[in-house]
């Protein structure tokens, strides 16, 4: 299955034309305009970013870093280290107290609230708790992401089976989420996040609820997505996984950046 999926992923990234063939509506134009464009090759730039909650609780403390387009980055650190704050700033769920957050060449501090939906269409999100809709089938869950962003039915009917095949869920498309295993549910959630082929995929503890073997499967899927050119930022505290992958590791502790290494292991962060 993996070679098949790889081929599909690669062909998809090389020719984005099918996605643009349909729906020449006004909404579609706005949509395209909002697709993230990392001008100088940086997908994410944090410049002196501090986030305070209230008076003296610091979520992030003066963080400066840059993530290139196409990179795979692990964001590690214990609970409360600022991983979630980092991710919430990326999707503009909130704004930085100080400093600049630039995603895909766009300064999020200067972006109006009404533009946020279009920003998020360019970012895929995967969470520890999957965030699937319980009353809907797997197919409907994935199609939902396209429906609510105003995609044409024809294009939805084409894209959903495609992404389900890619994530190995074709035979599960009529099942409900609670009929699936945790690993399968996380695949659905990844399918939903990637169905629009975003330039940036954010995964917040995607393997947090899964056993090690299943986690590796999810990891492989994310890696394949990364190889299509999608930037992947994955927050985790799964030590084994990080050690195995040997990718760039950004370690946070108490809101501070304590380590930023390429091809690194989880270790040295926690004694």
């Amino acid at each position, binding site marked *: 299955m993996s070679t098949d999926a790889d081929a599909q992923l690669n062909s998809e990234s090389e020719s984005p034309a099918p996605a643009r063939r349909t729906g020449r509506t006004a909404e579609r134009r706005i949509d395209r305009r909002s697709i993230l464009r990392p001008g100088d090759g940086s997908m994410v730039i944090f410049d002196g970013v501090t986030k305070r909650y209230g008076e003296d609780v610091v979520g992030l403390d003066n963080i400066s870093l840059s993530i290139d387009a196409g990179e795979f980055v692990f964001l590690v650190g214990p609970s409360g280290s600022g991983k979630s704050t980092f991710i919430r700033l990326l*999707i503009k769920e909130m704004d930085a107290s100080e400093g600049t957050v630039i995603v895909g060449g766009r300064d999020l501090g200067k972006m109006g609230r*009404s533009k*946020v*939906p*279009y*920003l*998020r*269409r*360019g970012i895929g*999100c995967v969470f520890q708790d999957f*965030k699937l*809709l*319980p*009353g809907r089938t797997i197919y409907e869950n994935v199609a*939902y*992401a396209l*429906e*609510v*962003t*105003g995609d*044409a*039915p024809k294009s939805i009917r084409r894209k959903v089976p495609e992404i389900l095949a890619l994530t190995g869920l074709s035979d599960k498309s009529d099942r409900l989420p609670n009929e699936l295993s945790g690993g399968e549910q996380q695949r659905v959630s990844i399918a*939903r*996040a990637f169905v*629009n082929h975003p330039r940036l995929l954010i995964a917040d503890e995607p393997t947090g609820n899964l056993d090690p073997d299943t986690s590796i499967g999810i990891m492989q899927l994310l890696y394949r997505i990364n190889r299509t050119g999608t930037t992947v930022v994955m927050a985790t505290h799964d030590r084994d996984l990080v050690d195995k992958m040997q990718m760039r590791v950004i370690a946070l502790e108490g809101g501070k950046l304590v380590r930023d290494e390429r091809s690194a292991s989880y270790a040295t962060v926690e004694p």
Partner: protein
Amino acid sequence: MRLGFFFREAIRSIKANVAISVAAIVTVMIAVFILGTFIPSYLYVQSTVNQQKSRLDIQVYVADAAPQSQVAALQAQIVALQSQGLIKSFSFISKTDALNQFKARLNDPSILTLLPNNPLPASFDVRPADPAKDGQIATALRTSHAIDTTMPGNGISYAETTTNRLLTIAQFIQYAGLVLIAILLVAAILLIGNTIRLSIFARRREVEVMRLVGATNWFIRWPFIIEGIICGVVGAAISVVILWIAKILVVDPYVSTSTGGLTRDSATTIGFGTLAVILIVAGGAVGAVGSGFTLRRFLKV
């Protein structure tokens, strides 16, 4: 197709919260039912009052006992006032004419054969040039000895008192009805709002996912607004059906058998079709307003 998506989502949500949706529908139904009985009743009273107001003629009743000379003198007085420009026209209605007119207004004229004689007085039907000067004309004519002072208004009757009384009643009905309707509509709006609030709560995961994948704010709101409108329109439609049944079973038989003033009266009220359209539109509007308010408060998108 987007409209299709909104409707599917709204219906899905109504099905998921059946109890609360039914509560909202019933409240709208009751409010609209009362609105539906009030509107035609009010318009009927209003129409009656307007008719009364246009009936501005002064009735000058002539005593049966008055000698011909006094009646002629009265007529001369009226002609004099007409030449002054106060009176536009007048006509003499004999006792027989009066009886015939009365017969025409009865459902069963044969009842009059039971009368030993004609009890109705002769009268002058005086049409003033300016209705506001009714009082002045009445004062001028009151000097005549031919007038039957046992009749209403001491023998000179004009619409003023009746009209004023009717207007007071009509106004009271109007205000009381408006207050009642306002209270019920507010209740309906609040209950629909509550329905939508619960629906937002029940669908918080959907809303979360919608925000996550980049649905615009209006895209998130529309299903809720449509849900409110559906509740409002369904409640109003049920109420229209009940009103129609009430009209067929109660009002229509009553009007056709009644010997009261409802039958020969030419006062009109609203047609049922128009009423139904107004009520259903009102129900939809109540639903939209109810969900709109709640979305502002509870759905920070």
